[in-house]
């Protein structure tokens, strides 16, 4: 028989057991799932992303992958990227950004800049402690703040970085092979030309009075 009020006793027992359990349970960590943030930090999943950054290889100045093509600037939906191309001493534009700013107060983390970049130079970071006391200047990240090494990229997004590196390496090999092929072709053409010239010279020597057919074709 269910006594009136027995449900209340059962409920009280549940809360009491939970309270005692939160102090003495062996699965303590499983019960109290709150992360004590500044001391305990979450391990971010590999796919986590926040704001874009610029990848460089080796040296931050020379190794910058960005060529200031401005595709990301044009594609950015909230238009938070600002790029100015660099110029050399003669005033001729070179393939390198002089200014590269991202306003992270505007950035929405859509990753479109990453997807459109043909040079694998802009990638998503996973920083999240970017709050500041001023809402204007500190939230616009400049080139120096945005530049981060490929090693860092490999560290935060290993899979993606490995894939990118493999693609760059493949492209490099392909390019080298193509260059080699071109070089060989050029060399072959040169050799052929030289041979033809030799033959022509020999022929001219053999029959100086007779006009040559190849000369007309050339």
């Amino acid at each position, binding site marked *: 028989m269910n*006594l*009136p*009020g027995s449900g*209340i006793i059962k*409920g*009280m027992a*549940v*809360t*009491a057991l*939970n*309270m005692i*359990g*939160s*102090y003495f349970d062996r699965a303590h960590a499983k*019960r*109290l*799932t*709150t992360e*004590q943030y500044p001391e305990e930090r979450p391990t971010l999943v590999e796919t986590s992303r926040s704001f874009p950054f610029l990848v460089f290889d080796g040296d931050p100045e020379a190794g910058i992958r960005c060529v200031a093509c401005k595709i990301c600037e044009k594609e950015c939906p909230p238009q938070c990227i600002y790029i100015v191309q660099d110029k050399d001493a003669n005033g001729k534009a070179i393939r390198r950004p002089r200014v590269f700013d991202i306003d992270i107060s505007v950035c929405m983390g859509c990753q479109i800049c990453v997807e459109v970049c043909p040079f694998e130079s802009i990638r998503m970071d996973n920083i999240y402690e970017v709050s500041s006391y001023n809402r204007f200047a500190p939230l616009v990240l400049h080139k120096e703040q945005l530049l981060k090494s490929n090693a860092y990229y490999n560290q935060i997004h290993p899979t993606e970085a490995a894939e990118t590196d493999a693609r760059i390496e493949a492209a490099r090999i392909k390019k080298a092979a193509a260059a080699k092929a071109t070089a060989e072709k050029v060399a072959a053409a040169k050799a052929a030309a030289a041979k033809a010239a030799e033959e022509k010279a020999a022929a001219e020597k053999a029959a100086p009075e007779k006009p040559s057919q190849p000369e007309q074709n050339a």
Partner: protein
Amino acid sequence: MNFLENLPLAAKKLILDAVEWVCNWLCAKTGIKLPDWAMPALLTLVSILIVIVTIIAVFMVMFALMSVFERKILARMQNRYGPNRVGFFRWRLCGLFQPVADGIKMLTKEDIVPRGADKIVHFLAPIAMVAPALVLPVILPYGRGMVPIELSTGILFFFAMGAGTELAVFMAGWSSNNKYSVMGAMRAIAQMISYELPLVMSAVVVALVAGTLSPNGIVEAQAGYSFGIIPKWFVLTPWGFVACLLFYIGALAESNRCPFDLPEGESELVAGHLTEYSGFKYAIFFMAEYVGMFAINGLLVTLFLGGYQSPLPFLEWIPSWCWFFGKLACVAFSMVWVRATLPRFRIDQMMQFAWKFMLPMSFAALIAAATWYYAGRGPAAWGISALIVGVPYLVLGRLCFTRRHAADNRRYLYSE
């Protein structure tokens, strides 16, 4: 151990002696001759001041501790940590300084009065709320010979003053010029007046058996041990147990605590009568609520849990005031426990519970107590009074709490 027992009284006497000595010294020094009535009058005034300061200090500290421990206990019952950050410089102290931070935040907040508000009533409501709450604790016996004001009609005084908070709640709700405030105030009035009845009835039960309305007399009536080990607290008798539970539920309702927090009902009315209050006035309301809760818990301890009497004969060496505050802490903890467990009542269920269950039960307890009183307080009296409260409990429980199948003939007026 008499030293600890009498520590508060000795401290009071020390202060009074010091005041007297300083006055005499000053008179002797300046050559002023005081009239005969001046010194006793001064000493009375000082002793009143001591009592006021002590009560306010003790209850403020209890309020501060309660506000942090309530949150921590509640959190633990929900498998959270609760406040554990605010400390003293770099020592965290488990967040014990949270009330200090809360206080600073409350006091520095802007005090907003709505444009359409009745400004005078809006201003007076917190005062009308806190004044009775601070007056309530004076009649409670905190220890042997430690009653701030000995009133032969202490219980009556308590309920008379306690009823004043209802007016304050309605003042707050009405003057705010906000529909949520008024709704909350209406609910508060309905709830408080409904639950005042069983609350007072269950206190009357104790007055009936103890034969006095003086809190100190009631505590004295609970002194001693039956069989040399079981304390003669009223909660350990059948009628007393029922009356204690009824009083406890009534106390929950009177102090607007879960599951009777309908007047505030965060999910329904923004904050009920507190909606338009901020800053210091809100803090006053908050404080009044907690002090009122402590006072009514103190009365519960006095009426049913033997006040300052120790639970076992061999623990009598612990000072009586420690027992009182220990019991008070236990009751306060149980209120937090109830808050963590039970969801809020629906308004019609709340009214039904008060009028159809609690009021008849308090009458049953009254009859049981009378029977117990005249049947000689022996085993036979025990059995009869248990029967008198047990049968109505089962019958009323069946009648009030069995679900009726109303779904078949329920009609929605505008849905067809």
